């Protein structure tokens, strides 16, 4: 009788593969991490934190975001309260240039190095791009040298080139979920269309920011699939959102992601993406509360959106800045990013 082959523990594998060699976990390995029992979460988070310190350094990147054009979007992303296809209470609104300048100033005053201008659109039209151009010019004339990112939906090559010319250094375009799950979430465009925009952004020399939302009915296997699909893209930043079940959307009755599950996801994504900026984004307030946010910061996260989101509110920026100070985590300075 031969002995059964010895099972190698996935965290032992990760320690050698990810921490020592900087090679992200495979889909199969990520799934094993997502299936770890609750009593191994502290061990997972400790390893994920070591990985982020080893491969990203101790700094935390702070960002603020604002919605330039809210609501009335023609797309049907089922999680989104800004889709014009659902009976959401969110009404259309445009932020004017003085409002955009104030928002950028508020963000800079928190010590943030990133300010992301977001619009709820399929892709930008001439009016929106003109507003973005005027807005960036006005932010600079205000003496604000914060780095500017944009999230304006799917782009043409010409639009990519225009954004580069405006000085936009990073572009956010989330794949949102695994390729196999995407058709359940969005039917008005495809995962591949989003991928195409991301490749154009990368090829044009802009930094790529691409993440998604956890808790949209995906299986753990699809969550693992998503993590490695993101790794394949090699994004500079991955924002990790947790579903906020917003009224009027098809997902309004979905449960909030449970804290332990969310922490396992944070740790697993860090082990799949050892060198990427992994940002805490929307939904963490509902999913984690105060205590969990700290655990996440000590579990692989190295970036954070402070203040409010696009249509939902976040914690006051100072509360997060105090948390970083308490955790002795230095905030990335603008001079380090230029």
């Amino acid at each position, binding site marked *: 009788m031969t002995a059964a082959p010895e099972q190698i523990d996935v965290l032992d594998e990760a320690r050698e593969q990810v921490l020592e060699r900087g090679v992200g976990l495979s889909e199969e390995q990520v799934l094993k991490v997502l299936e770890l029992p609750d009593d191994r979460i502290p061990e997972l988070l400790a390893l994920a934190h070591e990985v982020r310190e080893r491969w990203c350094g101790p700094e935390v990147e702070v960002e603020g975001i604002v*919605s330039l054009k809210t609501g009335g979007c023609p797309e049907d992303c089922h999680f989104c309260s800004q889709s014009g296809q659902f009976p959401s209470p969110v*009404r*259309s609104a445009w932020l004017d240039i003085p409002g955009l300048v104030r928002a950028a100033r*508020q963000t800079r005053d928190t010590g943030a190095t990133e300010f992301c201008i977001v619009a709820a659109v399929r892709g930008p039209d001439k009016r929106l791009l003109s507003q973005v151009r005027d807005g960036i010019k006005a932010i600079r004339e205000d003496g604000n040298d914060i780095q500017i990112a944009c999230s304006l939906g799917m782009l043409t090559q010409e639009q990519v080139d225009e954004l580069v010319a405006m000085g936009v250094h990073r572009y956010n375009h989330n794949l949102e979920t695994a390729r196999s799950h995407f058709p359940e979430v969005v039917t008005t465009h495809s995962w591949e269309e989003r991928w195409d925009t991301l490749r154009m952004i990368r090829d044009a020399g802009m930094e790529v920011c691409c993440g998604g939302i956890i808790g949209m009915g995906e299986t753990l296997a699809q969550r693992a699939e998503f993590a490695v699909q993101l790794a394949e893209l090699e994004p500079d930043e991955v924002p990790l959102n947790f579903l906020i079940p917003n*009224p009027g959307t098809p997902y309004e009755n979905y449960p909030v992601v449970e804290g332990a599950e969310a922490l396992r996801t944070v740790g697993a994504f860090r082990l799949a993406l050892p060198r990427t900026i992994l940002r805490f984004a929307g939904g963490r307030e509902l999913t984690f509360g105060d205590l969990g946010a700290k655990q996440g910061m000590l579990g692989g996260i190295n970036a954070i959106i402070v203040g*409010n989101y*696009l*249509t939902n*509110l976040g914690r006051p920026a100072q509360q997060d800045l105090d948390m970083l100070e308490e955790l002795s985590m230095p905030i990335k300075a603008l001079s380090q990013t230029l």
Partner: protein
Amino acid sequence: MTYCSFCGKEDADGDHAFCRQRLSMIDPPRYCAECARRMVVQVTPDGWTARCSRHGETASAR
């Protein structure tokens, strides 16, 4: 008569504990408390404004 700023129903109609929780955590008001009209809401990094076409603008305490 007053209305819930989260769901737009009458305050006296049912239990709004969930609505209050959301408003205290992550949601700006979406409905005018005086007339239940949907408001135009702009969220910014450190606050929000909400405008009712009949009752004017309210804003967060910054």
